[in-house]
């Protein structure tokens, strides 16, 4: 939307929960909650159908929740780890599910690069990493010498 607008105020150094971060956290929260609900339903009802796929869905859901909380609490290291796991997860699982469809008889949130979710699972970690980089802690600018 207006992320790259020049009028975007400079983020407070090191804070991931400010400004655009609020929007990002809402999206992460939505994903965390809905993925948790879906994975729980799948595991409770028909875990035996696709144990690997459903376990993976549950794992992905937990990672989204961790990322949500970490971003909201400015826990940069935890947030970075969670976001990186998501990026690796979506790339590896999507590639595997294309190469060996038998291993994933049922869709996970990461299958087909998140196709079932409008590719949000693929885009979200990239935006997350960009935001973490954008808000990286920077030393306060030194007063200019005259």
């Amino acid at each position, binding site marked *: 939307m207006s992320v790259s607008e020049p009028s975007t105020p400079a983020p407070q150094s090191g804070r991931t929960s400010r400004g655009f971060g609020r929007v990002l956290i809402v999206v992460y929260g939505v994903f965390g909650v*809905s993925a948790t609900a879906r994975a729980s*339903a799948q595991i409770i009802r028909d875990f035996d159908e696709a144990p690997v796929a459903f376990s993976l869905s549950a794992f992905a859901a937990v990672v989204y929740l961790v990322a949500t909380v970490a971003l909201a609490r400015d826990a940069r290291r935890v947030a970075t780890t969670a976001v990186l796991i998501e990026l690796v997860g979506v790339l590896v699982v999507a590639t595997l599910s294309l190469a060996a469809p038998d291993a994933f008889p049922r869709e996970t949130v990461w299958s087909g690069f998140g196709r079932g979710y409008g590719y949000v699972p693929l885009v979200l970690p990239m935006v997350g990493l960009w935001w973490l980089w954008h808000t990286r802690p920077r030393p306060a600018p030194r007063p200019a010498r005259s």
Partner: protein
Amino acid sequence: MVDGLVTVLEVACLIAAVVLGIEGARGKDPLWWHLAVVAAVELLLLVQAVIAVVLLVQGDQIKGSAGVFVAYLVFTVLALPVTLLWGLGEPSRWTLVALAVASLVVAVLVLRLDQIWAGV
């Protein structure tokens, strides 16, 4: 579920998403009429939830997964108020953008609710 209501909800959610998204992109801070837009959509969502509960109590059957249906129904009712509370922790243009995103998500979930109800 109720076809007319689903259409009304979709239109309402999309209008809210576009209006709030544009206002956020223009750098506006949250104003009262923004909150009124959110409240109007939320009212429709509550109506839908009440109708769904009444239909279920009267013995209508969900053709899809009942657990997922109930989870999504709760989610559609809570999404906007929670986003609003979270966004007003730091009122800014991003509050409006966050609400626009939440409206889009609710629009998708209302469609899914209708599909699960019909067993699609």
